């Protein structure tokens, strides 16, 4: 207190006293009572009777209560008392108009809730610092990616193990760790073989993070021990928070690992990719996974490097030293360090926090995404706020008379402002608090469905601060317009109760309604179209026969890189399936049609042209099973591809390269060599949207060809064409047969192909559902806005309408008089929204599943929905206008 400058000291003292105002008030009364006693005692000594002495003392003092009040004012305590009084008054006001209050608070809560949820998710994913000591020292180091397919290489590629060792030992960093994450077949204490993501890290990982484990110890320094540190969530859920968990043994891809530690609860890992099961030694990896990281191959770049820069060294220095290191590496290892365009690779360093905030590839996309999300949020909040303003405006109007009377009686404008602002603040608190709760709930919902342990989106202080600023700013700024209306009133006209007819026709308010209605129309058309697209996609022509098509998704992870058992499993499944009754033909493919076709492409094919190629690796039976027609050439027989693969291309490929490609050669990557092109087949749909078919290459190989299986990833999709009605029995028989023959494998999922498509489209479906939800919220907000506007007009024109009714107007005419302007603006908004929806849909059809067909039905449905909402919103205000009793209206303030 002594260290503060006097002005602050006084302010602090005043604040302290205000906080203890009831005690201060008691003290003041005590002080004055003492004065009066002393005065009375003196009068008593002068010979007055006790009663007369007290009277004389009071007389000397003057009006006691007046002086008490003046003393309180002098001390500033009065403010606090006024504040409480204003609060009580505001609560009473709100309780007298419950519908209005609830609607305004809900409108605000909806706006704030969306802001909280989105800000919390963005904050959790990108801006929360890692929960480790000194997170600002952590950096990621990248080796630039190769130039590929005519696209410039980017600076943020992974690194090889020898490069990591050179970077770690360069002396630039205090410590460095490397790792990569991949899903593995894990057998835990409470579950059988299941896919979990394991982060394979060098043993320094926990040292670099300076992480204190919740239990046990970090990975042993050598890095070869068969052990694992599990995440806290896994410990709680899968180990039932067993205190004896450390020391137990689990199986990862068939290799037993003993649990040596449990990560702290707040640490969810350093990769944003689903829930991390645990951290296991990277050097153990060749034994436990299909993709062995070749530790001695400088050109095999699969590791992400995390390093701690000493606090005192700058990023610029580190950058310069890394450049020098890259130069040395490029001259020492020209083969691995020369890119295809002959430029050397580069090393890039990025702060960990910046990587999370999008300083990586796609950083620009991230920034623009954040920007558009921000704009969208501002829009939602703006709509919510204008609604609140509209409602407050209606209320302010009903109170103009009251305010005018009080002004006439000498109330200060400052006091009235404080009182009206108090109501806004209370509303902000109410809306903000419910918005906060709503936001929390939304965040939990989104977390459970989409985030799934990848990061912690729980709102923190930062989110709370943004919420409070939004809620306060919104209500205070938008509470000002009603304030001006109430206080700026010309007292005489307000006292004479002349209707402010001129004020009711506000262009601004009408335009806000129109914009809201337009947005609602646009969103409704979009959501109806999206919903329609979802229904359509089942009927869509995928380019191949969907009905009667079963797919078994095999997972060979359990066989790891076993070059005998793994291909034997693949071949065994095909053999078993082909022998089942009801099966017409069987073929397998590396990628699921309509899934992701580009993974691993750069290792497989090196197209001569800059074609945007998609590819799949299939067995000869694939084409027959999917009933893809041959356009030219001849499909290979299984025996022809047993030892060396061939290529089959799509019509789109043939069109793209021009001429008939059959008989030519396709240049494969180092793993495939040159591939003869043997046939052209019809285009199959590669996406669920209406985007045109892409040039497609099928690498055709024999089932379980050893060379191929080792190269390709751990999944196989075996397709079965079955006779109509035999789907269920074939699926059951296949699962049963596989369980008997390969008990150690992860059980395959056998489903109709349409179900797989449903899974692939789950995200788009979620997007469509989100569009419907946003449309519904926007519809509700527009309805609330309309309600507020009409209510305002009904109130403002009560007196005028009363006169008209008294002069013989019909109630219906009075109702229409109120509704007319709202209807006019709504119609304008609907038209604008519908017009905007046309170009939006033309663009959207490339992104929407089912093609986002341009369907007038969707427009009609959207407009009808809006009409219903508008009628519902207008009901109460119009009823109010129509139900005006002339006699009462003429007395109305």
């Amino acid at each position, binding site marked *: 207190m002594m260290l503060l400058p*006097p002005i602050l*000291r*006084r302010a602090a*003292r*005043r604040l302290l006293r205000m906080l203890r105002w009831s005690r201060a008030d008691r*003290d*003041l009364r*005590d*002080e*004055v009572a*003492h*004065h009066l*006693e*002393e*005065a009375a005692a003196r009068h008593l000594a002068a010979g007055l009777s006790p009663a007369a002495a007290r009277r004389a003392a009071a007389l*000397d*003092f*003057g*009006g*006691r209560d*007046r*002086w*008490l009040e*003046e*003393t309180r*004012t*002098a*001390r*500033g305590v009065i403010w606090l008392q006024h504040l409480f009084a204003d609060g009580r008054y505001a609560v009473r006001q709100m309780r007298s108009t419950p519908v209005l209050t609830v609607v305004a608070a809900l409108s605000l809560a909806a706006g704030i809730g969306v802001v909280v949820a989105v800000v919390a998710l963005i904050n959790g994913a990108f801006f929360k610092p890692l929960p480790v000591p000194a997170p600002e020292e952590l950096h990621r180091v990248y080796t630039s990616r190769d130039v590929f397919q005519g696209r410039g290489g980017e600076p943020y590629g992974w690194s090889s193990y020898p490069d990591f060792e050179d970077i770690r030992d360069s002396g630039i960093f205090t410590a460095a760790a490397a790792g990569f994450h991949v899903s593995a077949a894990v057998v835990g204490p409470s579950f059988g073989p299941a896919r979990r993501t394991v982060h394979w890290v060098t043993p320094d990982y926990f040292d670099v993070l300076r992480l204190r484990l919740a239990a046990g110890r970090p990975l042993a320094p050598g890095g070869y021990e068969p052990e694992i540190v599990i995440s806290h969530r896994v410990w709680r859920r899968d180990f039932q928070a067993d205190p004896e968990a450390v020391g137990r043994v689990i199986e990862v891809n068939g290799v037993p690992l003993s649990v040596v530690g449990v990560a702290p609860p707040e640490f969810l890992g350093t990769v944003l990719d689903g829930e991390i099961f645990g951290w296991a030694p990277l050097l153990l990896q060749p034994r436990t996974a299909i993709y062995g990281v070749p530790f001695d191959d400088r050109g095999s770049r699969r590791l992400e490097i995390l390093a701690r820069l000493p606090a005192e060294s700058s990023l610029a220095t580190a950058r310069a030293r890394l450049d020098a290191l890259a130069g040395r590496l490029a001259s020492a290892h020209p083969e691995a360090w020369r890119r295809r365009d002959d430029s050397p690779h580069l090393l890039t360093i990025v702060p960990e926090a910046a990587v999370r905030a999008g300083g990586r590839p796609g950083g620009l996309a991230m920034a623009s995404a954040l920007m558009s999300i921000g704009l969208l949020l501002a829009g939602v909040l703006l709509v919510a706020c204008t609604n609140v303003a509209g409602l407050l405006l209606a209320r302010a109007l009903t109170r103009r008379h009251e305010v005018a009377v009080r002004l006439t009686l000498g109330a200060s404008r400052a006091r009235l402002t404080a009182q009206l602002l108090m109501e806004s603040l209370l509303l902000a608190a109410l809306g903000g608090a419910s918005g906060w709760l709503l936001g929390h709930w939304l965040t939990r919902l989104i977390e459970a469905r989409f985030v799934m342990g990848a990061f912690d989106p729980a709102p923190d202080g930062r989110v709370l601060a943004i919420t409070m600023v939004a809620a306060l700013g919104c209500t205070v700024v938008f509470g000002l317009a009603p304030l001006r209306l109430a206080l700026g009133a010309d007292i005489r006209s307000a006292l004479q109760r002349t209707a402010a007819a001129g004020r009711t026709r506000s262009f601004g308010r009408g335009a806000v309604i129109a914009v809201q209605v337009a947005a609602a129309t646009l969103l409704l058309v979009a959501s109806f179209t999206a919903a329609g697209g979802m229904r359509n996609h089942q009927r869509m022509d995928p380019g191949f026969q969907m009905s009667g098509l079963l797919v078994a998704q095999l997972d060979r992870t359990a066989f790891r890189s076993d070059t005998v058992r793994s291909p034997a499993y693949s071949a065994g499944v095909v053999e078993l399936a082909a022998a089942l009754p009801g099966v017409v033909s069987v073929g397998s493919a590396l990628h699921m049609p309509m899934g992701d076709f580009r993974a691993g492409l750069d290792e497989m094919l090196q197209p001569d042209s800059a074609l945007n190629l998609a590819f799949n690796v299939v067995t000869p039976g694939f084409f027959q099973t999917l009933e893809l027609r041959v356009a030219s050439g001849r499909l290979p027989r299984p025996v022809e591809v047993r030892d060396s693969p061939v290529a089959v291309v799509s019509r789109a490929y043939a069109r793209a390269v021009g001429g008939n490609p059959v008989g030519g050669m396709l240049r494969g990557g180092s793993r495939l060599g040159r591939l003869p092109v043997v046939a052209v087949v019809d285009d199959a749909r590669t996406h669920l949207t209406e985007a045109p078919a892409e040039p497609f290459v099928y690498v055709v190989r024999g089932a379980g060809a050893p060379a191929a299986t080792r190269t390709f990833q751990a999944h196989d999709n075996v397709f079965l064409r079955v006779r109509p009605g035999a789907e269920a029995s074939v699926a059951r028989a296949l699962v049963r047969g596989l369980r008997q023959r390969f008990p150690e494998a992860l059980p395959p999922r056998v489903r109709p192909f349409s179900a797989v498509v449903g899974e692939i489209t789950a995200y788009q479906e979620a997007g469509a559902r989100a569009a419907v939800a946003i449309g519904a919220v926007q519809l509700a907000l527009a309805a609330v806005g309309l309600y507020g506007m009409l209510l305002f007009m009904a109130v403002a024109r009560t007196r005028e309408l009363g006169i008209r009714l008294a002069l013989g107007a019909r109630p219906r005419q009075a109702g229409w008089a109120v509704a007319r302007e709202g209807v006019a603006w709504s119609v304008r908004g609907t038209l604008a929204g519908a017009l905007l929806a046309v170009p939006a849909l033309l663009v959207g059809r490339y992104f929407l599943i089912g093609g986002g067909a341009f369907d007038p039905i969707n427009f009609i449905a959207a407009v009808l929905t809006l009409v219903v909402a508008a009628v519902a919103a207008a009901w109460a205000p119009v009823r109010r206008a129509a139900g005006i009793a002339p006699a009462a209206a003429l007395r109305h303030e």
Partner: protein
Amino acid sequence: MDVRQGTLDLLVLRTLAEEPAHGWAIAQRIEMLSEDALRLNQGSLYPALHKLEDGGYISGKWGIAEDTRRRVKVYSLTARGRSRLSAEEADWRAYVQAMELVLGGQP
């Protein structure tokens, strides 16, 4: 004669310059020092006291009165109050002198 508006602060500060006192005693002392020429509107003392305290010119402490053994609030002058007192005293004397010059010119 009633205490003129605006002079009460100066009177309070001057009184407290002698020794700390509670409200009643301050009122008594003002009347006594002026030989009962000044009559204080006693209630007005309290807004003035609290304002001065708020401004940091005087500080109030609760204590026990020696004679009545009652809880009383005793005010004392702070350093800030002392400098304000000397400034206002100088102002007042200059003012009185000027008034005297003007009025002294009359026949």
